[in-house]
């Protein structure tokens, strides 16, 4: 009896966490007329994608998805490369003063973005990169790789030395040792980092909001957030926009669930 009470309390919690998702989906497939008469809680009579399609066209959602994918994908690739190079020098090369270098990288990741935003906005403008995807890619490659360096350095410090020595005896240069030995063996960790960088960058709001002012460069969260801030949307439109924002996130979640849970625990406690 008590066992089931505990189980049920957890199920109630889980349902409470899911309710917002459920009502978003329910309302996104209603017609505006249905919404007007039944309100947000009535079950939809059928599945109507009119609201979603109308919203998709209105904000050119395909373009926003593409922008987000380009930015997040580039950042994830570049930040993994940069992190590996940094961690190679710090974890395997044991460069002098590496503890302090790590502290600097960690600090770089911890700083509030508010303390960077105006200079970044100003500098991007000065070198002609304001309102370009490239500016956002550069900024997040730096920020994500700062964290990646911190995480990977501790992994690579424990890298089996014999493998590196063997490669050296075979005449491999440092670059070859990195590309042919270190990277292939670290692949699982690098995969987790890639997924993380991709999703984190996808979800970023503040710096992209400031750096991407024109419609055709905006990412999914920025485009939705700006529209919402202007309060121009009706209820059906809002739920359609919420649905379109939620779907990619859930897709990533289902695709990468294992990597995600493994990754956040790896990142949190060494």
């Amino acid at each position: 009896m008590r066992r089931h009470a505990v189980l049920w309390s957890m199920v109630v919690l889980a349902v409470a966490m899911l309710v917002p998702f459920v009502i978003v989906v329910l309302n996104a497939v209603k017609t505006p007329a249905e919404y007007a008469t039944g309100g947000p809680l009535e079950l939809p009579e059928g599945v109507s994608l009119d609201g979603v399609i109308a919203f998709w066209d209105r904000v050119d959602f395909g373009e926003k998805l593409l922008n987000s994918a380009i930015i997040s994908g580039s950042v994830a690739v570049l930040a993994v490369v940069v992190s590996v190079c940094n961690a190679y020098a710090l974890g395997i090369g044991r460069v002098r003063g590496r503890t302090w270098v790590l502290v600097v990288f960690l600090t770089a990741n911890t700083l509030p973005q508010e303390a960077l935003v105006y200079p970044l906005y100003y500098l991007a403008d000065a070198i002609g990169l304001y309102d370009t995807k490239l500016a956002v890619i550069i900024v997040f490659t730096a920020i994500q790789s700062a964290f990646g360096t911190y995480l990977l350095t501790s992994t690579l410090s424990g890298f089996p030395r014999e493998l590196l020595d063997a490669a050296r005896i075979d005449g491999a240069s440092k670059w070859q040792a990195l590309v042919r030995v270190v990277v292939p063996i670290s692949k699982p960790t690098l995969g987790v980092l890639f997924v993380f960088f991709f999703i984190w960058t996808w979800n970023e709001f503040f710096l992209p909001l400031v750096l991407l002012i024109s419609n055709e460069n905006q990412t999914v969260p920025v485009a939705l957030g700006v529209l919402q801030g202007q309060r121009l949307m009706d209820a059906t439109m809002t739920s359609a926009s919420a649905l379109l924002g939620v779907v990619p996130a859930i897709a990533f979640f289902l695709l990468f669930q294992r990597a995600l849970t493994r990754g956040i625990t790896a990142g949190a406690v060494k």
Partner: protein
Amino acid sequence: MRAVRERGSYLLYLAPGALLVLAVVLVPFGMNVGISFTEWSGVGEPEWTGLDNYGRLLSDGTFWASFRHNLALVVAMAVLPTLAGLVVAATLVDYIGKHFGARQAAVLRACVYLPQVLPIAVAGIVWSWILAPKDGALNAALRALGLEALARNWLGDPDLALWSLMGVLLWMQLGYPVVIFMAGMSRLDPALHEAAELDGASWWGRFRHVTVPGLRPEIFVVLLTCTIAALKVFAPIYVLTRGGPAGATNVPAYYSFQNFFERTRVGYGAAIATVLTVLVLVLTAVFLRVQQRGER
């Protein structure tokens, strides 16, 4: 000689990353500190005013209020999720996992974790619509249950907005500690639990004396990262309330944004951002120090 050359060539691998961090983080942060000593609208020459901005901050009621709101958000995003996360994680692992199976526990964990994968801005949109005063889902649900009297303008009432925001943030944040703590519990030695059980310890007794002490490193990390996240919180404020109504949900992060881009008081905004940064860094240093002492 050879050793020196070796170091030199490894340094080469550090160069791109170091340059990036220098250009994107360190130099801009230095500029931000510099700007905080000036009066500047963003165009023309900044005018050096020394510590004036910081002096003004001390007597700025909006600034102090924004910090008080931030404390409330630390409770909602760090303290409550940690406490609730401990109970939920322990229940899922030792109770659901043991009596009903690991799969059930994993499914429940996934449900609790799901809000964490949403872009915060999107979560904000979802909630702004649920909490809407006229036809929001929450008020509609209350009406349907005959609790019309409890319906409120959740985000539009200055006395309520901060509480609503806290609820939303708790919903967003809970999954993170749950996942971390569940992973941490798999590290704990099951023999300790069994020994306590043999000694007749209740579930609660084992939770308090075995699980919680065992999870100390995880608790530290969760409290630290969530507190920092709470201090930096911006997107939910921007999407849900824009700091309003009447400044009731303004936080330093949003207040500095307002000064930068709405009021064009860039020097003042930079001063707020600098204070926030110092606070975050001090907090991090203190936490890490305490954690190291705990490990010894």
